[in-house]
């Protein structure tokens, strides 16, 4: 199912396919015409995706057919060994973890996996991890440090799961702990937001030396729907919220939240998953080669400095910096007010008596 704004792309694609079929059936050569149309198709895709709104970008980030973490892993690491379980609570299928060879070295891979169909979506809890998933990730961090293996994480979640069990098992606690332990890793760490980077649940595996994002992926403090429900009191205003939240790859690069944007094939990753996977593979190899030249102390320092420097603020206006510890005596104020009230009451009483007397 194409997204509404993609309809012209699909229409043109259908036309080209029809022509090809027709030419084949009639045994005529129209390759020149097809080439012209194909060029137009590429241009149309580019133009469409250059101009889509942030809300449309959110829809692309969530689009069916977009390569999921497992699609990348299976292609990038053919001998990937998935490792299960957190050794405490169970195994969370929303987070895939394991080891494998990539670009000539063993790497630890941690990834959030949304389903590619309904059945997998239910199994994976739509990529929304429980505390167990983050505990598994932390186990992988230890493994990486012990054997000096670089860590790659693929982020794709609408957020950590908001449920009763999740809260009871300390969802907030494990996210904080995962951030802490990832920040303390002594090995190269790369994170890529491949689809949806949903809040703390995404950041929990996103404390990297280099944080990258795919062109049509998003990364946000809150989903546009929830933000709209809170600020506009209507989740139907998600489009406005998406606009306000500035959650696209381009926005985030500008704010220094991400370090690089990885271009997607024309028309988005979902139109050419193979090309997207190849592209990411190349970028990750390059990035890993660069990071591998750094020592463990440098890596740690670089990662800490990277996050230390994020934020926008300015000098406060002087007159606001009043002495915080003053005798802000609420008690005195209340008494003063009580006095005012009493006086008013007295006056009213007096008036009433006077008018009675007059009457």
């Amino acid at each position: 199912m194409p997204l509404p704004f993609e309809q012209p792309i699909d229409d043109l694609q259908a036309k080209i396919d029809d022509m090809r079929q027709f030419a084949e059936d009639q045994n005529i050569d129209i390759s020149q015409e097809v080439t012209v149309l194909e060029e137009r198709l590429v241009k149309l895709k580019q133009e469409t995706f250059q101009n889509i709104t942030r809300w449309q970008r959110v829809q692309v980030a969530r689009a069916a057919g977009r390569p999921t973490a497992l699609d990348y892993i299976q292609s990038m690491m053919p001998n990937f060994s998935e490792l299960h379980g957190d050794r405490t609570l169970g195994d969370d299928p929303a987070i895939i973890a394991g080891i494998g060879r990539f670009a000539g070295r063993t790497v630890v891979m941690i990834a959030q996996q949304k389903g590619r169909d309904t059945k997998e979506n239910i199994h994976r809890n739509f990529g929304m991890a429980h505390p167990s998933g983050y505990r598994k990730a932390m186990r992988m961090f230890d493994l990486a440090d012990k054997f000096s293996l670089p860590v790659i994480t693929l982020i794709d979640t609408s957020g950590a799961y908001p449920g009763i069990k999740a809260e009871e098992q300390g969802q907030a606690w494990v996210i904080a702990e995962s951030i802490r332990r990832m920040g303390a890793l002594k090995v190269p760490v790369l994170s890529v937001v491949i689809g949806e980077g949903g809040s703390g649940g995404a950041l929990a595996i996103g404390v990297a030396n280099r944080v990258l994002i795919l062109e049509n992926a998003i990364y946000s403090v809150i989903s546009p729907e929830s933000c709209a429900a809170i600020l506009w009191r209507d989740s139907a205003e998600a489009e406005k919220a998406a606009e306000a939240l500035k959650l696209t790859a381009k926005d985030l690069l500008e704010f220094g939240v991400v370090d690089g944007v990885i271009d997607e094939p024309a028309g988005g990753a979902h139109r050419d998953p193979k090309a997207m996977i190849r592209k990411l593979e190349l970028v990750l190899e390059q990035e890993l080669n660069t990071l591998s030249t750094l020592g463990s102390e440098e890596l740690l320092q670089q990662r800490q400095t990277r996050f230390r420097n994020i934020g926008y603020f300015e000098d406060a206006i002087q007159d606001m910096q009043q002495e915080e510890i003053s005798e802000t005596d609420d008690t005195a104020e209340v008494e003063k007010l009580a006095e005012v009230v009493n006086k008013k009451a007295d006056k009213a009483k007096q008036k009433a008596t006077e008018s009675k007397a007059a009457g």
Partner: protein
Amino acid sequence: MALERWFRRKRATKSDDDSGPAGLWLKCDGCGKQIYRKDLIANYHLCPECGHHYRMPALDRVNFLADAGTFVQWSGEIQSQDPLSFVDTESYPSRLKRSQEKQKRPDAIITGAASLGGEPVALAVMDFQFAGGSMGSVVGEEITRAAEQAAAEDRSFITVTASGGARMQEGALSLMQMAKTILALENLAKHRLPFISVLTDPTTGGVTASFSTLGDIIVAEPDALIGFAGQRVIKQTIKQDLPEGFQKAEFLLEKGMLDDVIPRDRLKSRLIQFVRLLRNKEPIHAPAL
């Protein structure tokens, strides 16, 4: 202070601050008795009748914890920009300005140095009355700076949180403050300085999922709401009612998420003991309050 704020009709809420009921008298949310506001304030925002915990304004909290005359403020020199040019039903700068005028500080936090029973500490107290105590770039930076300063001055670190979570109006920049504050406290940990986290009502979202749950010791005030996701969101997701006492301090203590739940009248003396014990000193006989 505007008069109408004092005489505005009372609304049912947990707070005795100006976001809540006003008037000289209020009916206690805990025991239902009429209490005189003056008595409530004098009693550290605890109901004089039943001990019900009302939210304590940030400044009162600082005065309550710090030994008299020892607090030296660090925060307040920076204020938020509006990097996203964020507008919802109102622009972010306009919302911010209202909070600043109301609370007389640039953002939702007070940090500084103090003595606590003679122990050198750094305090970071969040102000829930300022934009719901939300954490954006400024709160993140203030906590980070306070942790750095605490390390430089060999002070134990005490945070008192009250927050709805990350500040939406600064988008992913707010999200990143979670990592920033955590890494700052990780550096403090290298100095082997105690970090005690006090969770007060309410502490949720991005503040729960960051520095506040990484204390060497984590305690909460009675009945405080503490959680990752909002209750409305959870209800919508699971489509069933939430168990009794869900996300309350006592519930979390039972689940193993807190070291203790400490009533406010014993909080200061317990904090002093924690800090002293962790720094390998004899506990002192500190009077309650």
